[in-house]
């Protein structure tokens, strides 16, 4: 095996990838042979391997969280899952499929605004929670609580959302049926960039129902 000329050295970056087993297949054997004859390259490879081994060891010996966290996670998690099951039922009813959800809720405060002239709507929006929904594509998520004290079957056919930067009109296919009591509904608003914070300001949602129109709005404050 001839001594490699300096120009034949592999780059440090190539050795870093080699240490990870990620060098191109066709190059691996050549690199291995090169390192046998080149102390510089062998030193790089050894250093990167040591750092990788160190990172693995740090993880292996990492402290677990305090035992209290278990109870906290399981208690909150059960509640979150129950909510999610409700959410999923609604989503499937409006034909939405979501890849992943991470919601950051900010404000839970709403009041009902407009009533359709002549007739009070049968349903009342009693909660609006705005978050970002990391689905494909990421969108604003209007998590609304609806009460139907009359118990009359009400159909929601259209949702109009408005946020500080725009709005969206959605016809619901099929329409949402609200029979009575209280329920939670998720309506997706405008698509937003994944990295964007929630823009502070007023967020409004209007539902067109078989028994009048109902609106609610909420204020989102600056994220901490």
């Amino acid at each position, binding site marked *: 095996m001839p001594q490699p000329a300096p120009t034949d050295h592999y*780059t*440090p*970056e190539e050795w*870093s*990838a080699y240490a*990870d087993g*990620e060098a191109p297949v066709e190059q691996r054997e050549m690199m291995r042979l090169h390192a046998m004859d080149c102390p*510089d390259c062998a*030193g*790089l490879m*050894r*250093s*990167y391997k*040591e*750092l*990788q081994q*160190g*990172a*693995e*060891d*740090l*993880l*292996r*010996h*990492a*402290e*677990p*969280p*305090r035992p209290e*966290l*278990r109870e*906290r*996670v*399981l208690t*909150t*998690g*059960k509640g*979150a*899952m*129950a*909510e*999610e*099951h409700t959410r*999923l039922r609604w989503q499937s009813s409006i034909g939405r499929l*979501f*890849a*992943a*959800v*991470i*919601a*950051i809720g900010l404000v839970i405060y709403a009041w009902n605004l407009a009533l359709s002239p002549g007739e009070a709507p049968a349903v009342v929006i009693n909660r609006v929670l705005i978050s970002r929904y*990391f689905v494909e594509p990421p969108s604003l998520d209007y998590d609304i609580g609806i009460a139907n004290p009359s118990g009359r079957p009400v159909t929601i056919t259209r949702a109009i959302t408005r946020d500080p930067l725009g709005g969206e009109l959605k016809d619901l296919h099929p329409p949402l049926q609200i029979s009575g009591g209280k329920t939670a509904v998720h309506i997706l608003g405008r698509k937003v960039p994944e*990295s964007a*914070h929630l823009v502070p300001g007023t967020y409004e949602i209007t539902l067109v129902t078989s028994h009048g129109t109902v609106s609610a709005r909420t204020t989102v404050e600056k*994220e*901490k």
Partner: protein
Amino acid sequence: MSIHELDPVTLYGCQQGDTKALGVLYDCYRQPLYYLARRMVGAQEAEDVCHEIFIAVFRSLPKFRGKSKLSTWILSIGTHLCLMHLRQRRGPAAQTEPLESADDAPLDTLSPAYEVEARDFMRRLSAAIDTLPDTQRLAITLRGFQEMSYEQVAGMMQLSIEQVRATLFRARRNLIKRLKEGS
């Protein structure tokens, strides 16, 4: 360290919201997720972020269809939340990290002395990792899960494989520099 996978029965129980199964999932992933959170957001907020990750995982579980390994999927959620947390804390301006050109890369290697004091090496390495820019710190941390390929790391970090490769290299070069400075 490779992370365990849940058996299908336990996974199904988790998806149905079974408390015992969720407890098994928690026990299985608490250490890696807590480690990820601690590395990325620091010890003070690690527990809250770890909690947040688990809640996000629980919420998304009913929709997990097994297209990737559960551990990969869970780590992706963890990675995403840690990054979101850092962005919220630092604002969008802090996301860009200075790109050093490859030309200024010294052929730095660790001296064999590091192998002698293994325990001290780990402590110093941990401290050095904490000083890395977010992206480099995340790449090094994710690579600590030894079965994590560049492709998987790229998927989690939303980078190309080439960017992962370059980021890991920069991270290691910085680590060597810092380990030598500190010695």
